[in-house]
């Protein structure tokens, strides 16, 4: 059994907030608190840039990420705001199926929001997804 330190939730989330603001990573995903006054650090915005040479290219996808009270022990809820046609994302409301995304299905508490976003972006590059016809740009899920 691994010896893992349990980092308190707020510490983790603050760290992620800082990373998001500092632009850690390659710049293809972005995330931040939805509401800066949110003391619980629950609701987050996410952004994924469509990877090149796929049908998602040149598009910017908005997401909402919810880190529940048990985060990071439990994976966050992820939902696309911008309409997208991607395997594992519900067509009607943009909710990302936890079982379809590897990082969410096999969640570890060392995973982060950034990893989830990056994984989703990787999924866009998969052969089975990269050519799926997409709804016109700018459409959002309405709920």
């Amino acid at each position, binding site marked *: 059994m691994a010896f893992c330190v349990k980092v308190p939730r707020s510490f983790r989330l*603050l760290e992620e907030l800082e990373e998001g*603001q500092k*632009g850690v990573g390659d*710049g293809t995903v972005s995330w*931040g608190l*939805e509401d800066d006054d949110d003391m619980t650090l629950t609701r987050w*915005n996410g*952004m994924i840039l469509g990877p090149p040479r796929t049908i998602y290219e040149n598009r910017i996808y908005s997401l909402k990420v919810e880190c529940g009270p048990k985060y990071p022990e439990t994976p966050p809820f992820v939902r696309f705001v911008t309409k997208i046609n991607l395997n594992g994302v519900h067509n009607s409301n943009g909710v990302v199926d936890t079982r379809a995304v590897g990082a969410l299905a096999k969640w570890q508490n060392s995973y982060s929001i950034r990893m989830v976003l990056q994984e989703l972006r990787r999924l866009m590059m998969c052969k089975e997804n990269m050519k799926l*016809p997409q709804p016109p740009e700018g459409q959002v899920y309405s709920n």
Partner: protein
Amino acid sequence: MAENSGTDPSVDANVDKNAAQDGTMIVVTVKTPKDKEEIVISEDSSVAQFKQEISKRFKATQEQLVLIFAGKILKDGDTLNQHGIKDGLTVHLVIKTAHKSTAGSASPTTSSGAATPQASSSSRTSPAAASSTGGGAGVTPAQPANILSGLGDLSALSGLGMGSSNFMELQQQMQRQLMSNPEMLSQIMENPLVQNMMSNPDLMRQMFVGNPQMQQLMERNPEISHMLNNPELMRQTMELARNPAMMQEMMRNQDRALSNLESIPGGYNALRRMYTDIQEPMFSAAREQFGNNPFSALGSNADSSGAQPSRTENREPLPNPWGPPATSASENRATGTSTSSTSTGGTAPNLSNPLGINAMGLGNGVFSSPGMQSLMQQLTENPQLMQNIMSAPYMRSAVQSMAQNPDLASQVSPGSTPSQQQQQFMQQMLQMFVGGEPPSQTPEVRFHQQLDQLNAMGFINREANLQALIATGGDINAAIERLLGSQPS
């Protein structure tokens, strides 16, 4: 650990700077997938001002810039403060260029037609640049049209030497484009016009035969001509062409078979011979005209002249659409003027004939694209091109089949039924073609030698002989097979 615990973002806690909010300059890092720049900007400036600075540094217009911070897109009207952008933080930047390539990615349509992206950029700069998020109204579906509009913008391309030079080249370019875009390809395949053409083996054959290099090849390797004349084989090939998935299967099987050949003692030599004797000239012949090897799909016998390994899809039907769609597609636009001008025109294609034969319309929707129309225009103004087109041998038969099938014609001309005028026009066109052709002999005359031979062999039914010969284009062996096949014995 970060002290901005989300309580009050306006409290500067990160770096030691004076609390004065007025005009304090902060350094914000702007990051694109490829680049990183540090921009000094006043703390309480707006996003628009920020973009101004950025556009200078990144050499892009403000409309092209999309800024993202903490998962949110920054709108021009917001302030940096609003989003909590402070000194030392990083903002992500996406530059929308006209090629539809962001600061990091490459445009998918950069195929060999190098002219295209440039042309397309000129035609799409405004729509692409003007929009930041919503923009492009169906960016993806517009891509195929983009290719065409790129090519259609011949005016832009004339500088690149594509304007008036060679119809064939144009054709090739289009083909390459098509090849690179499988969606379009399937669109085209589904076009009933194309299907109709493909189901006409005579047409196909004429096309092949028309190519002088192919003729040479046929002389050297009579098997090839035999294959051409076998309508079954042709049909099969066309079926294959229609179905790219099947095609690939075939290719794969063929490749495997061929590689097996290699392992047979002496097999490698045979393969090599096959390649040099047959493949090369055929390939170059085909490439000149179609950009592919028309026999690539014929997997019947590995050591027959047609077989050859790993070509890309059999593109043979593609050149066809050049002919027929053109005729009636632009008839629509031709309206009155063309009829009058053509009626005067005698043999050679009437130069002022607005009939853009070179209609790249390979799908119905494609016909009406603005690129197409401009292309037609170009053609009308360019007599040289017209002549080139006319000289393509298969044009005639294509036009013939068009004329005979007004339904087909109406399909081609976007949505409108051919009017009387148009039909008349078609007739005239046909006559023009026929008139312009070198003196065509009746089939009897052409085949009289073969007829004699058949007679000597014992096929007395001259009528039937003639039919068979016509169908097989003068190939005695094939004609015999046809005759034998139709007889009950």
